[in-house]
C-alpha cells in the first residue's frame, strides 16, 4: 500500500523540503546584497560556536519543543491548534500567579507548582475552543485564532490594571522572589565539572522539555489513549465505529496540547525574564507550527526541529547584530519551512512517489512447483 519506503517518508521528504526552504532563503539573502555562505558561517559560530551561543540556542529550543509538541499532539487528532501563542500567554499568567502569591521554599517545588499552574491555564484556554468544536461544531482554527487575540487583550488588561506594581510604568509584574529562580545550565553543569556560560538563559526547563518529548512519545505510541487519538485522526468515522467518542478525544487532545503550550512559560517567564512582561511569548506559539510540521508530529522529530529552530533564532540574532540583515530573515525562513513541509508537501511528495514507483521492482511471487497429487 505504501508507495514510498519508510526512510524516504521520514527523512527524505522533510530533508528535501528543508533544502528547498534553505535554497530560497539563500536567494533572499543574495537579493538583499549579502553573502549567504558568510551568513551561514556567522550563524553557526554565533549559535553553536560557544557555550554562550549554545545556551541561547537551547533556551529558544526549549520554548519551541513545548509549542511544537502542543501542535503535534493536536495534529495526531487531526486538529489544527493555531492558538499556542494565546495558550502560552495564559500559561505565563499562571506561572506569574504561582510565583508571586505562593511562598515557595525551594526552586524545585516552585517549578512543579508553576508548571502545574502554567499547564492548567493553557489547558483551560485550549479547552474552550475544543468544547466549541466538539459540541457546537465551530471551526477550531478560527476559534483558536480568536482566542489568541482575546488572550493578548486579557493579558494586557491584567498586567496594566491588576498585576503591575504601584509606581511602575511598564506593564509587567514585579520580579519573582529569589526562591523561584530556576538554576541555569551553568549552575547545573558546574558540579559535573563542565564549564557553561554564566550569562546564557538556558535553564532546567530544557530538561523538562526533553522529558515532555519522551512522555508524549509514550503517550502517543504506547498507550490506549494515544492509539485512540491517532485512530480518531486517521478516520473519524472508523473511530466512532470502534466506540471512540469524538467529543472525548477532541477535548483530551486539545487539553494536552494547551497544557504543553502553557508550560512553555516555565522557560521564558520563570526561567529567563523572572517576571511576566507583555509579549513574553515572542511568537513561539506560531513557530511551534513550523516545528511540528518539520518534525512530522513525532516527538523525536519535534525535538530535533526545535533545536534547529533554536539555532536559527540565535543565529538570526547574531546576524542582526553584526550585519545589515534584519532579524526578520528568520521569519522568512520559518514561513518557507511551513510552506514547503506543510502546504506544498505534495509538491515534494508527488515526484518522489513517482520515482519510487518507477524504481521499485515488484517482488517476485515465489512459485513452488506444485507437486502432483499422489
Amino acid at each position, binding site marked *: 500500500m505504501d508507495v514510498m519506503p519508510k526512510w524516504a517518508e521520514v527523512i527524505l521528504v522533510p530533508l528535501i523540503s528543508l533544502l528547498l526552504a534553505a535554497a530560497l532563503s539563500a536567494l533572499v539573502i543574495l537579493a538583499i546584497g549579502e553573502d549567504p555562505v558568510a551568513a551561514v558561517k556567522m550563524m553557526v559560530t554565533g549559535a553553536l560556536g560557544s557555550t554562550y551561543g549554545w545556551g541561547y540556542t537551547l533556551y529558544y529550543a526549549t520554548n519551541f519543543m513545548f509549542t511544537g509538541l502542543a501542535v503535534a499532539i493536536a495534529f495526531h487528532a487531526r486538529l489544527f491548534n493555531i492558538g499556542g501563542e494565546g495558550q502560552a500567554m495564559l500559561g505565563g499568567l499562571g506561572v506569574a500567579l504561582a510565583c508571586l502569591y505562593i511562598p515557595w521554599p525551594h526552586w524545585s517545588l516552585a517549578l512543579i507548582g508553576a508548571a502545574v499552574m502554567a499547564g492548567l491555564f493553557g489547558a483551560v484556554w485550549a479547552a474552550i475552543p475544543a468544547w466549541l468544536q466538539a459540541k457546537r461544531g465551530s471551526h477550531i482554527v478560527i476559534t483558536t*485564532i*480568536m482566542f489568541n*487575540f482575546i488572550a493578548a487583550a486579557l493579558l494586557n488588561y491584567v498586567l496594566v*490594571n491588576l498585576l503591575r506594581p504601584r509606581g511602575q510604568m511598564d506593564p509587567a509584574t514585579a520580579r519573582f522572589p529569589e526562591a523561584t529562580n530556576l538554576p541555569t545550565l551553568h549552575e547545573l553543569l558546574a558540579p559535573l565539572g563542565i564549564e557553561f556560560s554564566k550569562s546564557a538563559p538556558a535553564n532546567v526547563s530544557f530538561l523538562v522539555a526533553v522529558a515532555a518529548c519522551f512522555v508524549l512519545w509514550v503517550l502517543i505510541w504506547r498507550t490506549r489513549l494515544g492509539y485512540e487519538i491517532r485512530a480518531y485522526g486517521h478516520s473519524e468515522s472508523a473511530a466512532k465505529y470502534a466506540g471512540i467518542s469524538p467529543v472525548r478525544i477532541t477535548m483530551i487532545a486539545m487539553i494536552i496540547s494547551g497544557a504543553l503550550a502553557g508550560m512553555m512559560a516555565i522557560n521564558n517567564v520563570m526561567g529567563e525574564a523572572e517576571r511576566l512582561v507583555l509579549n513574553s511569548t515572542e511568537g513561539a506559539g506560531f513557530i511551534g507550527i513550523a516545528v511540528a510540521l518539520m518534525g512530522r508530529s513525532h516527538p523525536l522529530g519535534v525535538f530535533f526541529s526545535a533545536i534547529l529552530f533554536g539555532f536559527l533564532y540565535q543565529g538570526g540574532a547574531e546576524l542582526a547584530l553584526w550585519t545589515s540583515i534584519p532579524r526578520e530573515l528568520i*521569519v522568512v525562513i520559518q514561513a518557507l519551512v511551513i510552506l514547503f513541509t506543510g502546504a506544498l508537501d505534495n509538491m515534494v511528495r508527488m515526484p518522489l512517489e513517482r520515482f519510487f514507483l518507477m524504481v521499485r521492482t515488484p517482488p517476485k511471487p515465489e512459485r513452488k512447483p506444485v507437486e502432483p497429487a499422489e
Partner: protein
Amino acid sequence: MDYMTLIQLLDSTVRLATPLLLACLAGLFSERAGIFDIGLEGKMLAAAFFSAAVASLTGSVWIGLLAGIAASMSLAALHGVASITFRGNQLISGVAINFLAAGLTVLIAQDWFSQGGRTPSLMGGARFEGITLPGADAIADVPVIGPLYAELISGHSILVYMAFAAVPLTWWLLYRTRFGLRLRAVGENPAAVDTAGVSVVGLRYAAVAICGVLCGIAGAYLSTALQAGFVKDMSAGRGFIALAALIFAKWRPWYALWATLLFGLFGALETRPDVIENVIGFKVQGQLLGALPYLMTVVILAGFVGKAIPPRAGGEPYVKER
C-alpha cells in the same frame, strides 16, 4: 455627546471599516469558492508595503496601488498553487503566507530604504487624498444635513468609495451572474460543478485572484490613504478581524458591510474612551473594546446567537476521481 462628535466618530468608523470591508469581501470570494484563507493579513501587509514603496519611488500613488495589487496577487497565486494545484492544507498555506509577508516586507524595506523597516513618509501625489464631493462646501453650513454630507460622506479617499461600491458589485456578481452561481456552487459541491463540465480548478483560481485584488486594495489603503507610509506589521491583525467579520456576516456581502462597520465602530471608540464614558455613564476598558470583535465572533461561531454555516466544501481540496 453632541452631533459633531457623533459625526466625527462615524467618520473615523468609515475610515477604519474600509480596509476591513475590502479584506472581508476578499475572503468572501475565496471562501465561497471553497478555499479557506487565513492569509488575508499577509496579503494586506505585502500590498501595504509595495504600494507605499513604489508610490514613494515613483511619486505616483496609482502606480503604487498597482504594485500593491500585484504583490497581493502573487501571494494569492502561491496560495492557489499550494491549495488548489497541490491540494495542500489551506490553513497551513495561509499561516505560511502571513509569515512570509511579515518577514519579507521588513527585509525588503530595510534593503531599499534603510529606515528600520519602514518607507519614507508619502507626500503629495504619492498619497490618496480625500475627495471633496460636489456641493460639499456649499451646504456645509446647513444644519444637520450639512455636516453629515460635508464631514461624513464627502472628504474620503477614492478607495473608500471603491470599497463601498464593491458591496453591491459583489452581491450582483455572486447572486445575479452565471459566474457567481458557479462560484458559490464550487464552494458547496465541487463534484456537481465538475459534472456540469465547468472547471473547478479554473473557478477556484479565479476566486483566489479576485481575493488577491481586493486584499491588494485594502493594503494600499492602509499605507497610502489611512496613513502616509508603511511601518512594520502595520496591518496589525486587521486581516483576522476581517476574517471574524466574514463569519459574523455569515459569508454574505451586505452583512459583511454591516459587520465591518460595526467592527470599525469598535475601533473608533477605542480611540475615544471619553465618548463611551459620556454615553453609557461608566468606563469601558480599551482592551475589552479591542477584543470585542473576536469575542462576538466566537459567540456567533458557537451558534448561541444565530448560526454561521460555512460553505460546505470549504477547506477540502477537490480530487477529481475517487
